[in-house]
């Protein structure tokens, strides 16, 4: 690990499963940018807004997108929720960290949009992916979206670090078909360095998913000089192998497409000089997973979040 890397970036003061409510900063209004285009922004006033967010009727949404082959199988409507408890060094969407930076969007508004795309989902084997930010920062909102999607027969997927897995209820898991579980690092020290948070909740969530019979794709971002220590990768592979319902591992190469966002937000970006892994480095990392008999995919050109 290069000495120049900060031990950790400032993590938000209160953002774990037990103190989630205090972390609930309602978005204040419409931001610039086209992130939520075509979704009507809620006009609810602040006090009402907070109450409706707790009920899951309203969420803080960063953006939505129709994507193919990046956030789960087929063509999917990926909804990026605002707010995240982690501060990953390589985060390429730091503008999703603050919940208040999102826009207040009704769950019904998203479900109505989802309904339009049912044929696309059916034709491509796609569906809904809830991503972020961290989707489990807004568990009630997520639960409502998942239930709504399942009610119309749409495949559902969570893209999560699992750090807030405790916020995910069993009822909610009933409505989840697939989890993209991001294991950011294999050992406690590296995980804390990379994310500012402990690793254990992620591993616990993985075991809970396996126990519930929910399919899991483990995702791991390969960052030269940060996560590419073979020992670290081996441990990530072991954690992945321990998940009984693991279906696929995706090794995502780090890229520099998020750098401008760090600059725009006035944040101190520690990876300015880090180059994306070479094809050889990427292949070597994949090989470590294969050695444990894991089905490895990932896309050399894939986009990590």
């Amino acid at each position, binding site marked *: 690990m290069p000495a120049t890397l900060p031990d950790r970036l400032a993590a938000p003061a209160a953002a774990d499963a037990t103190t989630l409510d205090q972390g609930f900063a309602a978005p204040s209004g419409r931001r610039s940018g086209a992130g939520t285009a075509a979704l009507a922004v809620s006009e609810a006033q602040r006090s009402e807004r907070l109450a409706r967010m707790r009920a899951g009727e309203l969420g803080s949404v960063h953006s939505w997108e129709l*994507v193919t082959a990046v956030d789960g199988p087929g063509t999917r409507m990926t909804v990026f929720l605002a707010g995240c408890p982690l501060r990953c060094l390589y985060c390429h969407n730091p503008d999703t960290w603050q919940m208040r930076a999102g826009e207040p969007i009704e769950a019904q508004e998203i479900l109505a949009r989802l309904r339009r795309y049912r044929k696309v989902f059916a034709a491509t084997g796609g569906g809904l992916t809830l991503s972020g930010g961290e989707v489990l920062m807004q568990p009630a909102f997520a639960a409502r979206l998942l239930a709504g999607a399942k009610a119309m027969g749409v495949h559902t997927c969570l893209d999560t670090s699992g750090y807030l897995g405790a916020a995910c209820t069993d009822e909610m898991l009933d409505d989840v078909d697939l989890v993209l579980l991001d294991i950011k690092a294999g050992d406690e020290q590296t995980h804390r360095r990379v994310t500012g948070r402990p690793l254990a909740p992620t591993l616990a969530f993985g075991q809970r998913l396996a126990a519930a019979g929910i399919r899991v794709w483990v995702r791991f971002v390969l960052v030269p000089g940060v996560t590419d220590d073979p020992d670290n990768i081996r441990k990530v592979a072991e954690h992945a192998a321990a998940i009984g319902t693991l279906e696929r591992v995706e090794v995502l190469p780090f890229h520099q497409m998020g750098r401008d966002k760090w600059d725009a937000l006035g944040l101190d970006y520690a990876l300015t000089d880090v180059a994306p892994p070479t094809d050889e480095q990427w292949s070597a990392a994949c090989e470590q997973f294969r050695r444990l008999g894991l089905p490895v995919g990932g896309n050399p050109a894939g986009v990590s979040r």
Partner: protein
Amino acid sequence: MSTISQAPSTTTAHLEPVPDPWRGFPTGSWQERVDVRDFIQRSYTPYLGDAEFLAGATPKTRRLWQTLERDYLSVERERRVYDVDTATPSDVDAFGAGYISDDDDVIVGLQTDTPLKRAMMPAGGWRMVETAIREAGKEPDPDIKRIFTRYRKTHNEAVFDIYTPRVRAARSAHVITGLPDSYGRGRIIGDYRRVALYGVDALIEDKKRAKDAVADQPFSEHWARYREEHAEQIKALTKLKVLGAQYGFDLARPAATAQEAVQWTYLAYLGAVRSQDGAAMSIGRLSGFLDVYMERDLAEARITETDAQELIDALVIKLRIVRFLRTEDYDQIFSGDPYWATWTDGGLGDDGRTLVTKTSFRLLQTLRNLGPAPEPNITIYWDEQLPDGYKRFCAAISIETSAIQYESDAQIRERWGDDSAIACCVSPMRVGKQMQFFGARVNLAKALLYAINGGRDEVTGAQVVTGHAPVPGDAPLDFDEVWARFEDMLDWVIGTYVEALNIIHYSHDRYAYEAMEMALHDSEIVRTMGCGIAGLSIVADSLAAIRYATVTPVRTDDGLVTDYLTEGDFPRYGNDDDRADDIAATVVHTVMEKLRAIPMYRDAIPTQSVLTITSNVVYGRSTGSFPCGHRAGTPFAPGANPTNGADTHGMVASMFSVGKLDYVDALDGISLTNTITPAGLGRTPAERVTNLVGILDAGFAPQD
């Protein structure tokens, strides 16, 4: 309707008896009258399997393609034009036989005596020919020049004899651009299959009969034109037999084998591209037709699969070396030197059977055997119901070569039947029963700026249109007011545009009539006036900005609005956001309503396209800045594409936006150009194919 006589089995110069051309074909009304569709429907074998049966390129095919590349194509890339024949105005039979090499003996025929050598077609206009010859580094022949400037009037001369002041003004201000007033209009697909199925003699008999069917009617201009055009068609067919004889074939009779069917069909197309240099010279829908002959020859053990593939490879090689004499200006408008030998394939029949045959696969296989190339422009009519093996093969070839375009089969079939083909890139027409008067397109984006400036050009400041007041004052623009002015301005713009088109096609029919192609049409056909618009996304985004944000005009000292200050957010076309997409759909509908209100030359049915694939740079260069932020002089987005960078919610969302444009308002077609890297479709080749098939199957109509 009298019977088309079946050609007798005769003995040719090859001293082998010609087998009965129609042996084994199901009987039907196609034997009573020219009806290729009926023949196909009764005879073809749908293929529901996968690509396993296909054969690779033969050594001969490979040698031929390598010779072309080494001796001709590489030279042409260096000097832009390989060679020009400056002595021989081109025609169906103007040149003797020519070959690429000794290996060139499968499907033969060149436009001139040498591959890639371009020929003059001065009937369209002399100036264009002379410029192109000089740009190619050669000198025009003074005798030819005298003929076409002194004795033989051209299409171009006629057009400018008739053009009105307002057409000239709109042309020079680039409100209307790329009009076919000095080059061939194209967008006509001869039914080249007729030559193979019936032989030229039967087609001549049919045309003579049609010509004389009106002989006892009284004189009218329409009657005279009908008879004169039929006479021209018969002359062209007679020349086509000469062309066949130059290569040793008796085109008078029907084709009797698969090799002959491909050869006859190609020579008919060759007759067309020797006599016309239209902007798009599309070849139609051949696979199902040719496959009938392939199946028969395979059953008779006359050919193997390798032979069948060699025939299609040889045909495609010929289609890849069609060349026309163009000017550098022309190449700019069309971004290169395209000739749009569009070959339509796939789709379903009215009876629900797929029209996919093994030859549909063989056509795609040419992209592997010969490598990718833009011509022939392979266009697949896509439907979810297409056989899975074919869908996956299309997707795989798309991913490998980026050389396939897709159309919605259901939408086209519903309107134009199950034997239609695409002319150029998106214009569908019933083969042999319909043609288009190609209309280039009008710069709709500029029309919006004219509406704001009351007809003054935002680039030159000149008053191009009179009788329109500019938006007054310095206050932010009001949507309703701008829309009303836009509609008023459209009346002038569309009226002027159609006036130009009527003049152009009247003149083209008189002075550059496509006798060869029209000889391969029915005598009574449907004509459409293919009007087009450029700059849709800029118009939609700008109107959305005026409506949802605050747009303040920025004026020069003399009051001309040349820029806009736009504050606040506004929805943009291309994100499946109804607020912006509805504006786009309304604009297209409004233009169509205005077109419908204007009488068209030869009772043509007006249609509209949203399809600028190639000329966006040219349109953008002469257009100013917009409320949406589009800067003066920069290229437009192609066709119905969202403005570059404005679609932020993924390609599929932009497809939904485009899907909201009503096909009824744009029956000449809507194009959306997308770039996807293979890696963007999935992690394995199989996953990529599945995902692309899924995207195409989805159809982009929202579910209610």
